C-alpha cells in the first residue's frame, strides 16, 4: 500500500518568554491510503501539535523548526513537503479543507454560532470544489445525508445551537469530507460526546472511510476509541513517539513501560468493585528547558535505570514486530540533532518557509 503522508523527524517548538518549549521533538510516522493511524497519549504530549503542524495551523509563537511533512497527492507523482509552505500562503490553503481536513474535539465551539451549518459547509465546497452556489448546496445536502442527518434539506438551514452534540459532530464531519479529502485528521473526535453517540460517530467514520478511501489520523487519549478504529498506533510521550506498531501488536504486546501502564489504567468490566485502578504517578512534564539527553518518561518510570535513562535518549528501534523507544529493549541511542534556536536561525527558517 502506498503512503499518502510521511512525517519525518518533525520538530515544532514554541518560543515562550520562559524558554523554548519543544512540543514535537523528532516525530516520524507514515499514513497509508484507506488506513487509520491512532495517536495516543496523555494531555500535553504533543498529539494536537502534530495535527496542527501537518495543516500548518500551529498557533503563535510555535514554529516548525525542522523535518519534513511529505504529502503524496497522487500515487505516482512527487510528494510535496508541507513543512516548507508559508502557513498563510495560498499553497497550503488549497490543501487545507480540500485534500487534508480536520475535525475537532468540541462540536459545541468548533462551529460558528451565528452561521447556519449549511453556510459553513457550503463555504468549504465553494472554496475548493465548485464556484456554483446551487451545486454547492446540493453537495452539502448530500453530505449531510451521508453522515446520517435526517431531513438534511431542512437541517442545512439550522444553526449549531439547534442541533444536539452528536448532530453537530456529524455536521462537522460532513464539512470535513465535503471536498473528498485524501486525509482526515480527527483531533479527539468523540471526547465531548456521550458513550452511545461516540460509538455511532466512530462507526460513521469507519463506513465513510470505506466509501471515500481517505487515510485517517485519529488523535485521542481514549484507548477504547483507538482499539475500535485504528490499524496502526503511535504512542506519544513528551513530544516523541515512544511506541509504534499495528494496533494488535501494541495492544497485545506493549513493550514501553508507558504503554503498559496506559493499558493497565483502563477500567475493565468484571473487575472487583472497590479495587483501585492502576495509575501513572505524576503528570506529563512540560517540555520546557528539559535536559538535552534523557528519556522523557524517566521521571515517572518505575523501571528507570539511573545513569542511563536520565542521561541518554533512546532511539526508536524495531524489535519483536514493532518499534519502541526504551533502553529496556535496545541500547541504541537517538542521534544528537543540533537545531539553531537563535533569532538568526529562526529568521533563516522563516525565509525558507516563505519560499
Amino acid at each position, binding site marked *: 500500500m502506498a503512503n499518502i503522508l510521511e512525517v519525518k523527524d518533525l520538530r515544532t517548538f514554541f518560543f515562550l518568554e520562559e524558554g523554548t518549549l519543544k512540543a514535537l521533538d523528532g516525530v516520524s510516522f507514515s499514513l497509508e491510503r484507506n488506513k487509520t493511524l491512532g495517536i495516543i497519549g496523555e494531555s500535553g504530549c504533543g498529539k494536537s501539535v502534530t495535527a496542527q503542524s501537518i*495543516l500548518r*495551523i500551529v498557533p503563535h509563537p510555535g514554529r516548525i523548526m525542522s523535518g519534513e511533512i511529505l504529502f503524496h497527492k497522487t500515487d505516482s507523482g512527487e510528494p510535496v513537503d508541507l513543512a516548507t509552505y508559508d502557513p498563510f500562503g495560498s499553497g497550503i*490553503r488549497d490543501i*487545507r479543507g480540500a485534500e487534508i481536513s480536520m475535525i475537532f474535539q468540541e462540536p459545541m*465551539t468548533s462551529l460558528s454560532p*451565528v*452561521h447556519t451549518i449549511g453556510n459553513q459547509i457550503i463555504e468549504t465546497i465553494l*472554496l475548493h470544489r465548485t464556484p456554483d452556489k446551487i451545486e454547492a448546496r446540493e453537495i452539502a445536502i448530500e453530505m449531510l445525508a451521508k453522515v446520517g442527518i435526517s431531513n438534511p434539506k431542512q437541517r442545512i438551514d439550522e444553526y449549531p445551537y439547534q442541533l444536539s452534540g452528536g448532530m453537530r459532530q456529524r455536521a462537522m464531519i460532513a464539512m470535513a469530507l465535503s471536498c473528498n479529502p485524501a486525509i482526515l485528521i480527527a483531533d479527539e473526535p468523540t471526547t465531548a460526546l456521550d458513550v452511545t453517540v461516540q460509538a455511532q460517530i466512530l462507526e460513521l467514520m469507519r463506513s465513510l472511510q470505506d466509501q471515500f478511501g481517505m487515510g485517517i489520523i485519529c488523535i485521542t487519549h481514549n484507548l477504547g476509541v483507538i482499539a475500535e478504529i485504528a490499524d496502526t498506533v503511535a504512542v506519544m510521550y513528551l513530544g516523541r513517539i515512544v511506541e509504534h506498531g499495528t494496533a494488535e501488536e501494541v495492544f497485545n504486546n506493549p513493550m514501553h513501560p508507558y504503554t503498559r501502564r496506559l493499558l493497565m489504567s483502563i477500567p475493565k468490566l468484571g473487575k472487583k468493585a472497590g479495587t483501585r485502578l492502576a495509575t501513572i504517578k505524576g503528570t506529563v512534564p512540560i517540555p520546557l528547558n528539559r535536559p538535552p539527553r534523557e528519556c522523557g518518561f524517566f521521571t515517572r518510570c518505575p523501571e528507570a535505570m539511573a545513569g542511563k535513562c536520565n542521561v541518554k535518549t533512546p532511539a526508536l528501534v524495531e524489535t519483536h514486530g514493532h518499534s519502541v523507544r526504551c533502553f529496556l529493549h535496545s541500547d541504541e541511542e537517538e542521534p544528537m540533532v543540533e537545531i539553531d534556536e537563535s533569532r538568526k536561525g529562526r529568521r533563516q527558517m522563516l525565509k525558507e518557509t516563505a519560499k
Partner: protein
Amino acid sequence: MLAYIVRRFLIIIPLLVLISIIVFIVIQLPPGDYLTTYISSLRASGVELDEREIEGLIRQYGLDRSVTEQYFIWVGGIVLRGNFGWSFQWQRSVNDVLASRLPMTLAVGLASLFFVWLMAIPIAIISATRQYSLFDYVFTFIGFIGLAMPPFLLALVVLWIVYSTTGVAITGLFSREFAEAPWSFAKVLDLMRNAWVPVVIIGIAGTAGLIRVLRATLLDELRKQYVVTARAKGLAENKLLFKYPIRIAMNPVFSTIGWILPGLISGQVIVAIVLNLQTVGPALMRATLAQDMYLAGSIVLILAFLTVIGTFISDLLLAWLDPRIRYERKN
C-alpha cells in the same frame, strides 16, 4: 422575526408613559419652583411685588393647579398638539427653544458616533489581530490618555493650540457671519468647517473606550475554536476574520447604540459650554438651575425617547447579528 419586532415595539409605549411620569416627578422634587427663583431675583434687584401681582403670576404660569393636573396639561399638550409647554426662563415656547438646538445636537451627536466607529473599529481590529505589536502599544497608550483626560480639558487644549497657532477661535458651530444667517450652501460648508472640533473632542473618549472593549472582545473571539475550524477549511486569513470573529465581536458596538446619544448630550455639557455650542446640553443645565420645569422636563423626555428608540434599533441589529437572540423565545 416579525413577531419579535412587533413585541419590542409595543413595549416602547408603556415605557414612555412611565418615563414621562418619573421625569415630571423628578423635576417637581426640588423645593420651590420657577417663580420662587424669579421673585427672589426681582427682589434682589430692588423690585418689590405685592401679593396680588404674585398671585397673578402664579395663575399665569398654571402653578396654582395640582401637580397631577399640571402633568396632564403638559403631557396632553405634547400628545395632542405636539406642544411641549412654555419656557419661563426664555419667555418662548419650549418647541421654539428646542427647534434650533435639537437638530444641531443630533447632528453633532450622530457625527460623533460615526467618528467613534470609524476610528475605533479599525484600530481595535488591528490591535487585536496584532496583539503586543508596536501599533497595539501605541494605540493602547493613546487610548488610555483619551479615557483619562476629561473632554472639556481636551477642548480647552485644542482651543488654545488652534488659537495660538492660527489666531482663529474655533468656538461655536458657525463662524460669526453665518451665526444668524438663514440656511444656505455656504452656511452648511461653514458648519462642516467648524463642527469637526466638537465632533472629534466629544468622540475621543468614546473612541478610546470602544477600542478597549472591542479589542478585548475580539481577542476572546480570536481564540475560539471556530476560528481554527475556518482556518483549517482553507479560508484566507482576512476573509475568515471578517466573516467570523469580527462579526461576533461587533455585539458591544451595536448593543450600546441606545446609550450613546444621551451619553453624548448629558456627558458633554461642559464641552458644549467651553466651545459655546448651541446644543441641548447647556440649555438643559440652565433650565434645571432655574427650575424652568417644562423646558427641563421636555429635554429629559426627548432624551429618554431617543434612548428608547436607540435601544430598539440596537435590539433589531443584534437580532440580525445573532440568531440565538432572534429565536430566543420561540420554544
